[in-house]
């Protein structure tokens, strides 16, 4: 492990102004080629870790190092501006950065094609299904050419089939681009299917309870979900999660 981590939490703690302790002494490194899922009880600070990495919050102790300017962030909701078409939404980051129009159009078109939304460039978000909106949201993040790709529980509101499709497609992006991925989710199978490592957090304040490697090769076949090896690993994550919950309650 000689490559520098794209994201590193070093003794990171965060206490909100109202006194709530969200995170307590988190140590975690995510390197390019790693896809780390964060699971834990509700309110354990999983999303807060992403918000720290993105710079929306500032740590009250310790440090958060982001070693790349190429940051992709996918929000819980698709967070598309309803008055903009898909294409105009996808080119927003470049537009805000002052990239010339022709160049950002081109980049947006590429990204839209990569998420399978070609032909929907002129549609408004309200004309798309939930899954398509999320694809557009991923396309927008892709225009950043992310080396660190953060996903804040992006597929929680989607139906199971759509969710599994998007799991595979994010997997494909990961295989092709080899970014460092951090994926927050409530779903144990999703965390195992997506990741090279599953990190289990305890309840508030969030601390790392377990760090479980996932050895399956990429690209992963959707049928992997129904193999005994997968089930065993999911059981292990579930057990760690139950332990984390009990610890929080105690």
């Amino acid at each position, binding site marked *: 492990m000689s490559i520098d981590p794209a994201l590193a939490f070093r003794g990171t703690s965060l206490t909100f102004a109202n006194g709530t302790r969200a995170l307590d002494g988190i140590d975690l490194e995510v390197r390019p080629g790693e896809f780390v899922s964060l699971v834990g009880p509700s309110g354990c600070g999983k999303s807060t870790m992403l*918000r720290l990495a*993105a*710079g*929306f919050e500032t740590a009250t102790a310790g440090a958060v190092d982001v070693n790349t300017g190429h*940051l992709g*962030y996918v*929000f*819980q*909701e698709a*967070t598309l*501006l*309803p*008055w903009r078409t898909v294409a105009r939404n996808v080119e*927003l*980051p470049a*537009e*805000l*950065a002052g990239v010339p129009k022709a160049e950002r159009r081109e980049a947006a078109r590429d990204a839209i094609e990569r998420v*399978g*939304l070609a032909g*929907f460039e002129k*549609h*408004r*978000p*309200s*004309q*798309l*299904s939930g*899954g*398509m909106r999320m*694809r557009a949201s991923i396309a927008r993040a892709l225009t950043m050419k992310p080396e660190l790709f953060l996903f804040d529980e992006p597929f929680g509101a989607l*139906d199971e*089939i*759509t969710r*599994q*499709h998007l799991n*595979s*497609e994010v997997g*494909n992006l990961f295989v092709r681009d080899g970014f460092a991925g951090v994926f927050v989710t409530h779903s144990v199978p999703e965390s195992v299917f997506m990741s090279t490592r599953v990190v289990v957090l305890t309840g508030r304040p969030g601390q790392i309870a377990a760090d479980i490697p996932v050895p399956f090769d990429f*690209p992963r076949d*959707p*049928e992997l979900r129904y193999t005994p090896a997968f089930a065993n690993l999911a059981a292990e994550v579930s057990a760690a999660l139950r332990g984390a919950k009990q610890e929080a309650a105690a």
Partner: protein
Amino acid sequence: MTATLETPVETTGTEAPQRKRTLWPFKTAPIRVFAPVAVFVLVIAAWAASSHLLVPEASRFLLPPPEAVIAEGLLDPMARNEILTALWNTVQVALCGLAIAIVLGVLFAVVMSQTRWAEFSLYPYAVVLQTIPILAVVPLFGFWFGYEFGSRVIVCVMVSLFPVITNTLFGLKSVAPAEHDLFTLHGATRFQRLWKLQLPAALPAMISGFKISGGQAIIGSIVADFFFRQGVPGIGRMIDVYRQRLATEELLTALLLSSLVGLCLFWAFDLLAGRVDRMHGKR
């Protein structure tokens, strides 16, 4: 189902577009047209009945029946010209005041949305604007600014500013936290955040404010004219004159036409609101 890698969107049955454009936009037209027309007919009938059945012949001039109002207020060329000319003067003042109120109000709201101290220091006075008894202020404006166009416009601006400010401010602040995060993530400048996020998001709320302000501006124009009793006469002055002459037919005509102008202004903004809602994918 076996999902393959690189699954094209089209094969995923769960991801069909949800919305269909209806080609025939008048699906709800019958109720939207019939209901108001029915109410209109009922009100006119009640009016006619009261005038003919309840009011004795001798004092019928106090509540003339609709046909008399139409005959003497609208069909009589002299009265009609008098009323329409005055109304046009009133409308010009109102539109000018409304336009200024919209520009000023949006400007104030933007400033208030950008800094907390600006909001805290300005908002109480915006409220005062709304609570001040306009009837007492109108004569003062006459003393200070004269009785012509400009002075009347100031009255209109005063009465129509508040709805623009509050609604715009509400709209600017209604942006979802995640959308703000998105702009933070991409290092948006304050101006980019305002221009590309807050103002477009505020548009529907702003137009609701304009709708209220439109009616206020017309009332302001009439009130100023009514109390100034000087300068180019508008519909307010004519109403006063008709009142003194006991010319109830003309008085009612002036009243009805003034409301009609307010209604048209409201409709215009409603049309605009419809366009904006479609742009926002809400209709």
